[in-house]
């Protein structure tokens, strides 16, 4: 049994492993990787214990707070929190991480910076677990930023590749924009409530008393304070979860090693945004009581989620890079989760988050296995025919694909997507998100079928693909485990047996018969079948023969295809506007400094110099001229008087003496008084 006060152990173990990894020399590969995996295993065990403890009393929020440092009359306090939401996330993260760590043993075997990789991975895991177990938004933010750094380091892991370095920077800066919003929201919340603790015996920001107070505050513009704070916090979540319009970094992040993509940019970190919104869901929902407000936070969340879901799916169709397809699929799926949150079903979002973590990790690892086998060939046009040479990978990848596409009943993705569709259909603000999700379902099934067919069917279209062979056990076993998870996890949250839902909310949820609302489920099944069928029709029946052959869709609509392939020109748009604006401001600041302020100072200096010159000219001309004239007169007079000077000292003396006598006699005899 583990208590909230001991929860810090879960992030501390990987952190320790990261420390060990940082301090071991480059040759200490075994030590670093062993420590990382052992720490992860330990964390997983602890997480399971924590889950057990949380499930014992699912409605309770167990927390342990402590003072970080004194500030003014109060203090800045942090804390750990344990409830089912946390616990499930912990277990998921530690489990997926553990598997990916093991997979990395094989995948990164050749890399010179092997030990550094495990160090960074452990750092990431520690930060991620910190995000999860934090009972303070401040602690969460701290871990959040560390997650960002770990992601930065891992994306730029192959830093000698300029593209990787640029992608890392892009990822960090893009998410930083969101994080600044998050920071401001945090600061605002702190100022408004005086605390950043989530639960603090009635004083936490997620507790009803505080939220009630908060909801009464309205800004001059009519926006409710909780709405504004929530939207600012949502900026952070959007940045991290790759939501429109901050999604541009996520596909680029695929420059990192594939296990990184699997762990961070598919399963865990990008889900942190969803987790954050789910975590502070009461805050987001606090403005719901104000019916008259111009805008509800959750409405924005739903809208952004819907846009992202659709956008990601559309772009994924036209990508040729194995990992890019998966990346946009991730963007799309994260949009689904946000949408779920926005329409109020945070439980559905978390359910999808958990299942998605498994099958997306599986897909990425499968992709990694392919890439590993094909000597880092990622272009699906140049792969092909791998189903024969890579049996295990193919099977597991297919499981993941079907889970993602939402193939009914067996695969977990079906159930979680179903929950979201259900929630979206019941949202009474607007039906647009619902329709977006429906389109998304079709597209998801379509592009996943395309991917599977292009990679595994047909004949190898490049030497690398031809020579591919199955990956070692250390990579395939995690695939298999994840595949099992990708299937099994769905049964935890079926409408028939909503175990997960009831545990997460802490209230028993009545089971629904499977076919209640069967219309929706039927629609979904039809849509999935439509997607699969279209995919099969276009890519399965007639396999691609050469790497250069055009895509059937590209042949049909080349301009649209190119537009989608260029990721809807988002990067060009940003480069043309934001980056250029930034460069302009920088140039302006530099110009101000060098020219304006510098010149002002220079002008002052010149002015002082000029004053000096004028002064000296005036002295030379006017004053001295006058004096010269005057002294000439004096000289003339002096020359006249100088005749009296004989140069005879004695004469002078004598004159003095005689004059004295004469004067004295005058005084004495003349009686002059």
């Amino acid at each position, binding site marked *: 049994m583990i208590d909230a006060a001991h929860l810090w152990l879960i992030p501390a173990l990987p952190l320790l492993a990261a420390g060990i990894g940082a301090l071991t020399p480059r040759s200490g590969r075994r030590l670093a990787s062993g420590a990382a995996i052992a720490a992860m295993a330990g964390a997983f065990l602890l997480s399971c214990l924590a889950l057990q403890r949380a499930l014992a009393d699912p409605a309770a929020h167990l927390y342990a707070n402590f003072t970080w440092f004194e500030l003014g009359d109060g203090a800045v306090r942090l804390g750990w929190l344990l409830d089912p939401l946390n616990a499930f996330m912990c277990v998921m993260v530690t489990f997926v991480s553990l598997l990916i760590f093991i997979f990395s043993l094989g995948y990164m075997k050749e890399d010179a910076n092997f030990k550094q990789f495990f160090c960074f991975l452990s750092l990431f895991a520690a930060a991620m677990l910190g995000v999860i177990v934090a009972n303070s938004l401040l602690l969460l933010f701290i871990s959040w930023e560390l997650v960002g750094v770990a992601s930065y380091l891992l994306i730029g892991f192959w830093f000698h590749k300029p593209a990787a370095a640029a992608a890392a920077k892009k990822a960090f800066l893009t998410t930083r924009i969101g994080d600044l919003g998050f920071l401001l929201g945090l600061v605002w919340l702190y100022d408004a409530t005086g605390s950043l603790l989530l639960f603090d015996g009635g004083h936490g920001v997620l507790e009803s008393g505080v939220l009630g107070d908060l909801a009464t505050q309205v800004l001059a513009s009519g926006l409710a304070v909780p709405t504004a704070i929530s939207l600012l916090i949502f900026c952070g979540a959007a940045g991290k979860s790759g939501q429109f319009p901050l999604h541009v970094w996520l596909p680029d992040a695929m420059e990192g090693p594939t296990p990184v993509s699997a762990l961070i940019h598919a399963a865990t970190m990008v889900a942190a945004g969803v987790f954050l919104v789910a975590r502070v869901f009461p805050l987001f929902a606090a403005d719901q009581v104000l019916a008259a407000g111009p805008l509800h936070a959750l409405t924005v969340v739903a809208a952004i989620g819907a846009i992202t879901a659709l956008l990601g799916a559309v772009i994924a169709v036209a990508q040729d890079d194995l990992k890019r397809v998966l990346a946009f699929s991730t963007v799309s799926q994260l949009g689904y989760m946000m949408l779920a949150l926005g329409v109020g079903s945070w439980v559905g979002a978390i359910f999808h988050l958990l299942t998605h973590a498994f099958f997306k990790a599986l897909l990425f690892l499968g992709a990694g296995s392919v890439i590993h086998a094909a000597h880092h060939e990622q272009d699906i046009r140049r792969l092909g025919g791998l189903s024969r040479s890579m049996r295990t990978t193919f099977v597991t990848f297919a499981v993941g694909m079907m889970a993602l596409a939402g193939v009914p009943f067996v695969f977990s993705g079906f159930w979680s997507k179903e929950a979201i569709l259900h929630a979206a259909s019941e949202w009474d603000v607007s039906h647009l998100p619902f329709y977006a999700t429906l389109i998304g379902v079709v597209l998801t099934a379509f592009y996943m079928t395309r991917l599977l067919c292009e990679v595994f069917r047909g004949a190898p279209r490049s030497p690398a693909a031809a020579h591919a062979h199955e990956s070692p056990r250390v990579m395939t076993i995690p695939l298999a485990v994840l595949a099992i998870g990708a299937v099994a996890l769905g049964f935890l949250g079926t409408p028939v047996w909503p175990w997960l839902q009831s545990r997460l909310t802490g209230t028993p949820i009545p089971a629904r018969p499977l076919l209640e609302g069967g219309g929706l489920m039927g629609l979904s099944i039809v849509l999935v079948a439509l997607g699969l069928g279209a995919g099969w029709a276009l890519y399965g029946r007639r396999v691609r023969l050469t790497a250069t052959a055009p895509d059937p869709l590209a042949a049909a609509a080349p301009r649209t295809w190119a537009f989608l392939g260029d990721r809807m020109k988002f990067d060009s748009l940003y480069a043309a506007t934001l980056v250029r604006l930034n460069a302009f401001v920088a140039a302006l600041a530099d110009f101000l400094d060098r020219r304006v302020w510098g010149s002002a100072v220079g002008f002052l200096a010149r002015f002082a110099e000029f004053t000096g010159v004028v002064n000296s000219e005036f002295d030379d001309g006017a004053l001295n001229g006058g004096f010269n004239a005057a002294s000439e007169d004096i000289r003339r007079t002096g020359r006249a008087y100088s005749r009296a000077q004989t140069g*005879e*000292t004695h004469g002078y003396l004598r004159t003095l003496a005689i004059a004295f006598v004469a004067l004295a006699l005058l005084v004495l005899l003349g009686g002059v008084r």
Partner: protein
Amino acid sequence: MSPLQFCLIFSGVLFSVGLAGALARSNAILVLLGIELMLNAANLNFIAFWRYGPASAPATGVIFVIFSIAVTAAETAVGLALVIAIHRHQRSIRLQEATRLKG
């Protein structure tokens, strides 16, 4: 004749001796010394008035003498330097010959 008058006459005679020397001798050094003597005679007066004169500030006369001595020292130093300079220029210290400064 009161002691004060005696002192003043003493001083006056000394002064006259100095004056006579300064006027009579052609050697520049002796002229200088004559002037020194005159100054000393003047100093004598200060002390005499300090000693016998109507009571004023207790130390005034002495202080005046001290200043006078200091100034005299300076005067002598410069005077002798001048004598040496004259000697260097015209190999003589006869004062009658040092008339180059006439107007």
